[in-house]
């Protein structure tokens, strides 16, 4: 996903979450681990693998533990993409 703009990350995160959670996720829906029964620890791993694969980023262990919502995911992905592009290493 080398060409995605930073602004497009959040909608893309929501689209991916709707695929993995098997339900629609709207633009303004706040999706969080606490409020989402299906987002258990194994689903968390699945979501992480999906985001990493799709955006070409890699989360650190602290990142994994800090992800609690769709917004967190989008924020971390944006940060990683911005940094990678600054270093010329975006995949």
């Amino acid at each position, binding site marked *: 996903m080398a060409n995605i703009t930073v602004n497009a990350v959040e909608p893309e995160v929501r689209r991916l979450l709707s695929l993995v959670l098997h339900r629609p996720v709207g633009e303004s829906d706040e999706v969080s681990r606490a409020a989402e029964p299906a987002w258990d620890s194994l689903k968390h791993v699945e979501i*992480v693998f*999906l985001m990493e694969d*799709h955006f070409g980023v890699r989360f650190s262990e602290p990142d994994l533990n800090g992800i609690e919502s769709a917004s967190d995911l989008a924020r971390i992905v944006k940060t990683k993409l911005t940094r990678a592009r600054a270093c010329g290493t975006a995949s």
Partner: protein
Amino acid sequence: MQTAAATSLDRAEWQRIVFAERPRRADLLTLPAAGGEPLRINVHRNRPFEPVAACASPFLRYAGWDASFVFSDYDDSLSFSGWRPADVELIWLDFARYRPFDRSWLEGRIRWLRNATAAPILVPAPVDGDLAVSMAGVRICPQGPIQGALGSRYLDSRTGVDLSGEACVETARHLAFVWLPPALRPRIKAIAVDLDNTLYHGVLGEDGVNGVEMTPAHAELQRRLVELQESGALLAIVSKNERADVESLFDRRRDFPLRREHFSAVSASWGPKSAGLRAAAAEMRIALEAVLFIDDNPGELAEAAAHNPGLHTLHASSPLNTVRALKLYPGLNGYTSGDADRLRAADLAAASRRAREQAASADPGEYLASLQIEIGLALDRAEDVHRLHELSMKTNQFNTGFLRLSEAQTAERIASEDCPTASIRLRDRLSDSGLVGAIFTRLAGETLHVEEIALSCRALGRQIEDVMIREALAGIAARHPEIREILFSFQAAPRNAPARQWLARFTGAEPAPGDAPGVPRIRLESRDRLPVSIVWQT
């Protein structure tokens, strides 16, 4: 309900995702997960399998299954508590949790499961796993090729799953494409290929024999097809071209890895490819369900699928994509190549020679004698279990019972004194056909119930079905003097008219579904005097 043509076109679209060098999770999630034959898989595990299962559905769907997974608790002891029957048992272990690893303990646990169910048992094992369990229906599934391909990307210590996301996807693909099909379905017997822009770049009718281009990628595809032929798959050409041009192409293009002799059937005409495929399958004596058709034109694939239900199709979008698909296509890979596979192509060539000799012979008896036929018979031979299981699963035309026995069920019968099971081998001057017949019976007092006779099509056409079956049954009767009557079960199926006709003639009674026409034991003793040798093997 979707038509076969539409399904074929859909599958051509899915190929770029399921056969991708690196399948992407987001792409997989967009494919339909449901549909196909229901399949319940029990997962007995001491580590998470969910991240693998989460991406397995699209691959399983492509392979024709609508699978559901039932997970055990995390259980190092493999207690199988709360076990309920399923279609497949999968043992998913982190072997590193057992230090030292006690192989006999694991064998004992697998034996418990084996005794509880006849379903296939799959045990994925790491590259350094010291596993060689030899129990019927138990398959050790090597994870080494996945680990080898991914290298340092195989493991991931961040999540507690141990496997990386990429390794989970590749494991799911292997489960659906390489590990499950050999446990549940017969192997695809033949690959029928288009020529123009599939096996080479160019159009034979326009560019000519010397004008078509053998690119490095097309050469790799041809070499892969040669490998598959050498491992037992039959090859056929189904092309819209002039037959003379096709013959000339393979005569003159010495840079082609594929030679004319690699092909067991050639159908070159301007008619529909669906008809060409039927002709090729008939020439190879196999059902179209056992054929994979490869063509660069999705329209041709759809036409062929529409007229031939059950045909497998593969879109040759590019030669390298086709090479990768052939390494993964469900039904082609992961199978053990047995004698039957190795003998099949030579046996087919011999069948053509037999037909020519028979046509040229004025005396049928003399012709039969000239073949120097030898029939080898054996009872309850444990070494034959896999091939007997294959015959029960694969044969359609000469199959009286359609028991579709799993390998474990076949082994159980061989071990049981109440279920005499005969193996029939056949060879003649022209070829060794190998183990071509299976007879599954059950003793009940003075009656021998013949529950299934399954003969390979390669055994037919020499007018020796009667003598093969009669001698095998006589051998069983000789070991059980209490037998006074032999009853035959018959299960009608769409394509087993040859078996029904044979049974009606042999017993003198027309079988109907569920019927059990019988013959008295004495009939076995009135042998035909055919010029064949009978050899009983121990």
